């Protein structure tokens, strides 16, 4: 692997966004993900290689460290920010087809429910793993999901609910999405939800955490 790709991976893993960013302290003043990705592209390295071997690989590491409680959320968020900034350079190559995104993930907290901390974490991790994420926010209605699905054919959907009362909305929304678009795969999560409930409401997957959401999505994609 090219040295620079390793450096990119390092920046993403430790949340070094760009030259100016103060974190991590021991890299002060050095180039960050932003600069390094740009020069890697300039030096002719394939964008797909930068993305998968440098950026996504690093985010996977981050995800694993997070799952193993070896880093806190802010550190993960820093990595996610580094990832986003670097991604700006990769984006143009999506259009011309030289880089492929895994797919689009439409996520939101179901109607009646305003909890979004958990959902935000999930969306960040999924994004960091190479998905295009469309975050509809909180208190999202079935119509709004269905609208968005139309805009992103073949997308995957994530629903979050934190209240036992809004589990009922979740059930309804799954029903309405499946009625409108039977092939759309839906993954659900949130503290009161579990595998059993997932089966009961005929969603396609459940995961208790962001890292699990990523693997579920990858599985559904492969299936």
């Amino acid at each position, binding site marked *: 692997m090219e040295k620079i790709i390793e450096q990119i991976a390092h920046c993403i893993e430790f949340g070094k966004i760009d030259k100016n960013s103060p974190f991590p302290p021991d890299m002060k003043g050095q180039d960050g993900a932003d600069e390094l990705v740009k020069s890697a592209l300039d030096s002719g390295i394939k964008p797909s290689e930068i993305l998968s071997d440098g950026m996504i690989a690093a985010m996977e590491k981050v995800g694993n460290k997070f799952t193993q409680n070896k880093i806190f959320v802010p550190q993960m968020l820093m990595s996610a920010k580094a990832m986003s900034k670097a991604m700006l350079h990769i984006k143009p190559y999506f259009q011309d087809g030289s880089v492929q995104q895994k797919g689009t993930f439409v996520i939101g907290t179901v109607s009646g429910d305003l909890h979004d901390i958990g959902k935000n974490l999930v969306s960040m991790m999924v994004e960091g793993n190479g998905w295009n994420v469309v975050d509809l926010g909180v208190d999202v209605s079935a119509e709004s999901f269905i609208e968005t699905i139309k805009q992103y054919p073949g997308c995957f959907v994530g629903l979050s609910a934190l209240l036992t*009362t809004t589990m009922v909305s979740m059930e309804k929304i799954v029903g309405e999405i499946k009625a409108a678009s039977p092939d759309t795969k839906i993954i659900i999560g949130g503290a009161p939800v579990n595998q059993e409930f997932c089966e009961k409401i005929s969603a396609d997957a459940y995961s208790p955490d962001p890292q699990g959401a990523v693997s579920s999505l990858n599985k559904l994609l492969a299936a």
Partner: protein
Amino acid sequence: MKYRDLAIKNANDLIFGNTPHPVTTKRGLVIGGGRVYPELNFTLPSIEVSPDSKEQVIEHYRQITTGALERAKDLYSQGVVLELETVIEMTKYPDIGVGVVKTMNEICEEYYQKHQLPTEIRLTPNDLREFDRPPRQRTGAYLDPMMQLFEEGAKAGGNLLSIESTGGKEISDDALMMCNMTQFIFSQAVLGVRDMHFLWDKIADVAGKTGVLMGGDTACGFGNTAMVLAEKKYIPKIFAAVARVATVVRTLVAVEHGATGPDKDCGYEGPFLKAIAGIPISMEGKTAACAHLSPVGNIAAACCDLWSNESVQNIKLLAGFAPTVYLEQLEYDCRLMNQAVHKGHDACTQLQELMVNSDISYDPQALVLAPESVIEISKEIVKGNNYIEACVLGCLKSVEIIDKAYKQDKLTLNDMELTWIDMLRSELEAIPFNEEKFIDLVVPTLDQNKILLNEYGIT
């Protein structure tokens, strides 16, 4: 800052079951006057709440109340507080919430008349205003039904008014996730405080009109969110401990507006409020494990006047419905404390010592709740010339307490945690006490799509 001195100056006097200003309720509970009562909390199982399902909703609360009070009676309980914390639709359509209060109150009255069991309903409408995104704390349409529930609910038997108000939450959520203490303090000591003044002015009006008591507020959405995140190992425990202390000043505002307590359970500003203002408080710890796991299971009881389970769904366990089960657990916890109260101050101190030592060496969040820490921190808080200074001084003191305990080998902290002591101290030291300056410093760092500053009177 109204309070410039402590009502309880000595850690030894900060104890469960007694407080300088006890509160007597309509049916004769004397909270903080020599007895700890259970405060039972409960919520609906997974059902739809809407005007159409009003009867079904009321039926659940009827069953919960009857089950719990029947058990309380059989356990020779001396009194119970029932908290009705509404879920969204019960506030949005105040008619539902009021119907529930009414039904609960009828049952309370029946047990009072027939069995001399004194009970009181704490009415806690959920803060609907956050439903607008960005929230419109003052001009939004959600304020009206919420205030209506306060008023009609008070008339229907909600004798203790409380709320977990959410001013500043649009900032604090991200601040917690990013462990940005500057922004978090801004959300509490500027936004929170301003919103509390606005809101508790209104609640005081309602209480005056209806002749009921003002329990108080709680920074659940802030302090407990921090705790839950730390419990999931998402943010450092040290951060959560200091954030917890940072919530005190905003909750104190309710007391400044006349809240007499019992303060609400689900944040832990209570002990500080008790020290500063001498009001009785409700706390939750190990017996609230049904609602969330906790690092402060025993120590949380150290100076409580009500002891709560925070929340449990109305589902069936082997022994019966969960609220009845938790009523029993709380009642036995209270019996133990009341035996100590009955025996005298020394017995209380001894039991309190066990509660405190049980938890303080494992988690900084427990450490800051130790009566000695509470008094030390409260002393700093009342030194503040304004809310920001009070807040920062309190936080700095808590960092110092944590640092000291760690260095004296009295507190376990892993390496991931350790680095935060210095980081937090220097961040806190950089905060200007002047509100205008603080606003100028923080506002540019905020995502402007998330907040409407004029909803806080900031122009």
